[in-house]
């Protein structure tokens, strides 16, 4: 075996930590994109779809369902807006706020002493 099961588990945990760091940075960028999407610019909405697609997929793999779920919702919503050509900005903001709260909570849990093994 070139990778042991223990090594794999340790590496998945390491990737999970890296994921949280990344989404904590990306949510700032995502907020700026959602602000820009108020203009109805579909190119911006496509960027939101791509970014939330990654958050959604990796989040599910790494057991961050609380992040993956609103990210997936924003991804699907963005796809629908691109298809219809109509952007419902208030709905996007609502989901973004839930996503932000989920990321903040996950980061707080990671740094909280009670969350450590």
């Amino acid at each position: 075996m070139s990778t042991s099961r223990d090594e794999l588990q340790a590496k998945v945990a390491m990737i999970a930590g890296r994921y949280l760091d990344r989404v904590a940075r990306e949510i700032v960028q995502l907020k700026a994109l959602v602000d820009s999407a108020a203009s109805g610019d579909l190119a911006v909405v496509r960027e939101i779809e791509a970014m939330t697609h990654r958050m959604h997929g990796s989040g599910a793999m790494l057991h961050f369902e609380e992040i993956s779920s609103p990210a997936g919702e924003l991804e699907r919503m963005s796809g629908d807006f691109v298809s219809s050509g109509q952007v419902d900005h208030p709905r996007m903001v609502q989901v973004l706020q839930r996503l932000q709260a989920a990321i903040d909570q996950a980061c707080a849990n990671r740094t909280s002493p009670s969350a450590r093994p």
Partner: protein
Amino acid sequence: MNRDGLREVLYVDDEPDIREIVQMALGLVDTLAVRTADSGIHALESMRERKPDLVLLDVMMPNMDGPTTLQQMRATPELQSIPVIFMTAKAMPQEVARFRSLGAAAVIAKPFDPMLLAEHVFSVWEQL
């Protein structure tokens, strides 16, 4: 086909975290070499350079998605016989049926258990 015939897998996904997990998960099998590509376009280039035994293909990717990549493979004589397994969060029965109708050998649902991925892949391989 049997398990011994599977030597090299190409995993295609635009998400770097998942590429890394799959590479490590399949690395549990020391006889298996795993290459990765971050897009359908790069996957086709990689396959033309060296033909893998099996391709694991994400469905939703920017620029060229999984089904389009498979379509391109099937239209390319030297790549058309390579078996493809789709890996996707869209694994409802009607979606699985659609992927199978496109020529996928199987569909593995995301999220998957990294500890079980290699066994899952081999079980599909053995049925080809």
